[in-house]
C-alpha cells in the first residue's frame, strides 16, 4: 500500500507538522489510576495512550515459579475503540503476544529479579489509543509503573521508534509513518546507553541502520529527562506528604491527592 500522503514535505515538515527530529509531546501520570495494584503509570505520546499496572512481587499463581528469581509475566491488551477500525482482539492474538514477549525480554535483565526468589511480578499493559509506537510507549509506561511499585531495577528503560524516509531519519513515528516507512524500535538504559531491545520488523538498508540506531539512542536520553522529572516530582510529593509537610488547600488539591483512590462524589459526606 503506497500512500499519496507526503510524509516529509519540501519544507522539512512531517504529516503532523513536526520536524524530522521532533518527538511527540509526552505526558506522564504516575499511580492512582488503577485500584489494588502496586504501581501504575499512564503515558501519552502524541495520540498514543498506554497505561501499565504492576502487581507484585507476589505469590506465584498457577505454577511457573523459579527457585532463584522472580518470574515476570506481561499481558498486553488493546482497547477496541483505540484504533481506526473498531476491532476486538482476543487474548491469544499473535501481535499482542509478540509485544508482550518483547516487553518481558526487555525488562528481565533490568529488574533485580534475584531479590525475589519464588515470586512473580505481573505487568498488565493496556493500550488505550493507538497512533503508532505502541511498543515504545508500552515500555516507557512499564518502566514508570515498575518504579511506582518500588521494584528495584538497574536503571530507567526508555524506548523510542525511529524510521527513515529515503535518506532522512524521522524520530518517534506516528501511525501513518509507521505503516509506510522502514522503522526500528530501540529500548535503552540511559545512564550507560546500553541497548536492551532493538526490534526491526521491516526491511532497512544496512548502511542506514547505524545512523538511525544512534539517533534513536540519543533521543532516548531526552525521553529519560522527562521521565526522571516526573518520577522525581512524585517521589518528592509522597515523601513530603509522609513527613506531614503537605499542605492541603483547594488549589493544590488535585496534586495533593496522590493515591486517587476515591472519586470526588465518594468524598462528599
Amino acid at each position, binding site marked *: 500500500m503506497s500512500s499519496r500522503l507526503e510524509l516529509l514535505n519540501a519544507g522539512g515538515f512531517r504529516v503532523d507538522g513536526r520536524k524530522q527530529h521532533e518527538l511527540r509531546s509526552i505526558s506522564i501520570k504516575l499511580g492512582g489510576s488503577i485500584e489494588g495494584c502496586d504501581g501504575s503509570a499512564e503515558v501519552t505520546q502524541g495520540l498514543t495512550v498506554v497505561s501499565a499496572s504492576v502487581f*507484585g512481587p507476589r505469590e506465584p499463581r498457577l505454577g511457573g515459579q523459579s527457585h532463584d528469581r522472580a518470574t515476570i509475566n506481561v499481558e498486553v491488551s488493546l482497547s477496541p475503540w483505540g484504533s481506526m477500525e473498531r476491532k476486538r482482539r482476543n487474548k491469544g492474538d499473535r501481535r499482542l503476544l509478540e509485544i508482550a514477549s518483547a516487553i518481558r525480554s526487555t525488562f528481565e535483565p533490568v529488574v533485580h529479579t534475584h531479590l525475589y526468589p519464588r515470586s512473580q511480578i505481573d505487568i498488565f499493559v493496556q493500550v488505550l489509543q493507538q497512533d503508532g509506537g505502541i511498543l515504545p510507549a508500552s515500555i516507557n509506561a512499564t518502566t514508570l509503573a515498575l*518504579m511506582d511499585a*518500588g521494584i528495584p531495577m538497574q536503571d530507567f528503560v526508555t524506548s523510542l521508534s525511529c524510521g527513515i524516509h529515503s535518506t532522512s531519519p524521522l524520530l518517534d513515528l506516528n501511525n501513518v509513518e509507521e505503516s509506510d516507512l522502514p522503522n526500528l524500535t530501540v529500548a535503552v538504559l540511559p545512564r550507560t546507553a546500553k541497548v536492551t531491545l532493538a526490534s526491526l520488523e521491516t526491511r532497512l538498508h544496512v548502511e542506514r541502520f547505524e545512523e538511525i540506531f544512534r539517533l534513536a539512542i540519543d533521543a532516548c536520553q531526552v525521553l529519560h529527562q522527562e521521565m526522571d522529572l516526573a518520577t522525581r516530582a512524585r517521589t518528592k510529593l509522597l515523601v513530603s506528604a509522609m513527613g506531614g509537610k503537605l499542605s492541603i488547600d483547594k488549589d493544590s488539591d488535585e496534586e495533593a491527592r496522590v493515591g486517587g483512590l476515591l472519586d470526588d462524589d465518594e468524598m462528599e459526606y
Partner: protein
Amino acid sequence: MGGVAGLGSDRDLTIACTGESIASSQTFMRGHGSYLDQETSSILSSVCGTVERVNKLVSVRPVRTRYSPEVGDLVVGRVTEVGPRRWKVDIGSKSDAALLLSSVNLPGGVQRRKLESDELQMRNFFQEGDLLVAEVQSIFHDGSVGLHTRSLRYGKLRNGSLVRLAPVLIQRLKSHFLTLPNAEVDIVLGLNGYVWVAKHIPFDVTKAEGEASGKGIGMDIDGVYSDVNEEIPIHVRRSISRVSHLLKLLASYQLPISDVIVQKAYDFLHSFSSENLVGG
C-alpha cells in the same frame, strides 16, 4: 560533595531515583535499594525514594513498596490455601506466609499437642478466604514467613470490613488494636497495610489473664473460630463504612496512619451534625 550526594547536616531528606549514583563504594557500603556498578565502582540507587545513611551503610527506602515482614509485626491476612499442618496466608508481601497448625490456639483454650484429629479438622479453624489477625513469629532462612495466633487478641476476624492501604503508611504503635469509642468501632491496623474495621466488642480482661496465668482449660472462647457475624446495628454499620472511607481518604493523600491521626480525623468528622453525613 563528600561521597554521598547532598547528605549533609541539613534535615532535608535526599531523594534518589532509579539508576542515580548515591555514593562511592570506596567509602560506603551498600544497603537495601541500591546496587554496585562494576564499571564506575559507585553505589547506585535501584528504587525511587529517600536516601538513608547509618554510619557507612547507605540504603534507599522506596516511597511505595510491598510489605516486608519483620518478627513481631502484627499483620492481617487472608487464608489462601489449607495445606498439610499449615495454612498459607496472603499478607501482601512477596510470598504467602505460613501459619502452622502448632502455632494456633485450639477452641476452648486447651493446651496440648496437636493430634492427627486436629489436622483432619483444620478447615473448622480456618478455611480458604477467611481473614485473620496474627503476629509474625519467625522468618525462615529461605525468606518465608511463619505466623502465630497464640493470643486471645489474635485469630479469625468477623463483624467488619477490610481496607487495604499502602503498608508504608502504617506507623508502628504501642498497640495496633484501636477502639474509637464514639464510633463503636474497633480497628486492627495490620503493619502489612491490611486494616480491619469492625464492630466494637469489649475485650474481656479476665479471659486474657486466664490465658496468661496458664489456666487455659474451661475458658469459653468457642466464638474464636466462628464464621457467623453477630447482629450489627445499623448505626455501627454506618460508622464502619465511615471509618473505612476515612482511612482510604487519609491514605489517598499519603498521610501516615496512626492511632492519634485516626482518632482526631474521626472526631473531626463526628463534629459535623449527623444530618450532613452519609445516610445520617
